[in-house]
């Protein structure tokens, strides 16, 4: 590879008490790549994402984005630098409307929010743009309802809409399909396929069909360690992986 990867993770380590959750992880995500991480439950996938997004601080190792070291940058700074994440367990502002939630993501990149006078909901520039993302995820009809009134599936769609609206270079998607029915999963897979190439995505997912259909590369995480990284075909052929993970399914 000649060009620099967008995200570079080297020798990352994190432990809780005596339990090592992330153990010497090396990982990179190239620009425009969809890189999936798979692994059994409790392998430390969410812990890894949390360290990348800044919600958790690693004990050792380094993380850099576009060549800039962000290992110790707080989460909100990383977001400003272009990393966004979706949550495994839906994390939205439930009291606000669907459109408000998405608008907050748009507002975040339109300059300072230390603006006290103009009503936020009357700023067309923000509202219109937010609405395009809402529409894109098929939530147009529910845009003005409080988020708490929406279904689980719709919440997952909102998570994606917000990630898109933030226009982050790197999207960390933590099991976006968790709890979705087969039809909804298929729609979301199609959507991600369409998105592929324009954004870099680090995807954690249990739905193997989706992963193998979407990913450019796959890393397999077992007990906090990455035991293999490669194209879907390589991973499928890897005996370690078959033994440690896939074989057990």
């Amino acid at each position, binding site marked *: 590879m000649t060009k620099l990867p967008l995200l570079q993770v080297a020798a990352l380590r994190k432990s809780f008490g005596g339990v090592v959750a992330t153990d010497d992880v090396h990982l990179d995500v190239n620009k425009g790549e969809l890189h999936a991480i798979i692994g059994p439950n409790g392998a430390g996938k969410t812990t890894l994402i949390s360290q990348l997004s800044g919600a958790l601080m690693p004990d050792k190792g380094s993380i850099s984005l576009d060549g800039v070291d962000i290992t110790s940058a707080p989460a*909100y700074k990383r977001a400003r630098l272009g990393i966004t994440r979706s949550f495994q367990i839906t*994390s*939205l*502002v439930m009291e606000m409307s669907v459109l*408000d939630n998405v*608008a907050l993501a748009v507002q975040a990149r339109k300059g300072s929010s230390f603006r006290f006078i*103009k*009503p936020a909901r009357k700023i067309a520039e923000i509202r219109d743009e937010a609405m395009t993302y809402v529409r894109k995820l098929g939530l147009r009809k529910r845009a003005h309802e409080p988020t708490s009134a929406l279904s689980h599936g719709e919440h997952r769609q909102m998570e994606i809409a917000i990630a898109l609206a933030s226009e982050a270079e790197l999207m960390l998607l933590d099991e976006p399909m968790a709890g979705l029915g087969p039809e909804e999963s298929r729609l979301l897979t199609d959507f991600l396929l369409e998105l592929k190439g324009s954004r870099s995505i680090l995807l954690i997912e249990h739905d193997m069909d989706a992963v193998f259909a979407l990913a450019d590369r796959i890393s397999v995480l077992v007990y906090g360690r990455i035991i293999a990284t490669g194209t879907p075909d390589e991973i499928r052929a890897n005996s370690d992986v078959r033994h440690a993970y896939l074989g057990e399914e």
Partner: protein
Amino acid sequence: MLKMNKTGWVTLIGMAALAILPPLLLLNGQAFYMDLATRLVILAIAAVSLNLILGFGGLVSFGHAAFIGLGAYAVGIPAYHSMWGGFDLIASSNGLLHLALAVGVSALFALITGAISLRTKGVYFIMITMAFGQMAFFLFQSLEAYNGDDGLTIDLRSELPFLNLDEPMQLYALSYGSLVLVMLLVRMIVNSRFGVVLQGSKGNAERMVTLGYNPYVYRLTAYVISGAICGYAGFLLGNFTTFISPDMMHWTRSGELMFMVILGGVSTMFGPVLGASIFILLEEVLSSFTTYWHLPFGLMLIGVVLFIRGGLMGLFKGKGE
């Protein structure tokens, strides 16, 4: 073209009543009810300021009375020196100086204590703000020069251009006008881009961080604004009572402010005003019936918490509002 909902009507009628009734009572020789209304309106300002952080920011400050005290002492101390001499730097009866001091000192106190308190969450935040309030309380208790515990009685009020605060009607007009302005100000802030970030941080701070907002600075800013407004209420209260004591800052006073906000309804515009009104009037009415008025008062408090969702304003909310 303006279609008002029930809450809107309640607000309008309530504010109109506050504008009309007290002056009418004063003109009919009922000076005491004017006093009552003035205290009510001033405490309503403090309650509205608390609602900005409590209702819209989710920050339960249990030390807000400290700002009232600071604002009141910002009137009392310069006035005291202008009466009895000493401390030439601030000895003055100039109301604009008092005002600047009240708002400035309160904002500064909010900035310093908020910067520390906002590192904590939940019950810890409730208790650390209480601790800072108690520190202010004990600090003024220890200031012998200003009579410590016994409080400061001043014989003059702030001198303001165009206004004579010794006139109950003018003091009331200023307080009422201030309440209206403060309510509009808080509404403007809450609806602004700043306000939606503040409310988003209340609803889900983790999400806001992911979007690139740092909730800490928004909360701190709101805390400072709220403290400054509450200090302004203290400025008015000092001018109203002309007696300023550390008691104004005691934690039970902070509790009363919280109670007003919650009784009326958090995150509503008129809720804190309604809460303050009910609180003051109830205190007045109940205590005139019995020395043991705290008993029905306490029972009512428990009742409100147990049975009324969203405070009294919740009763006026129609479907889908």
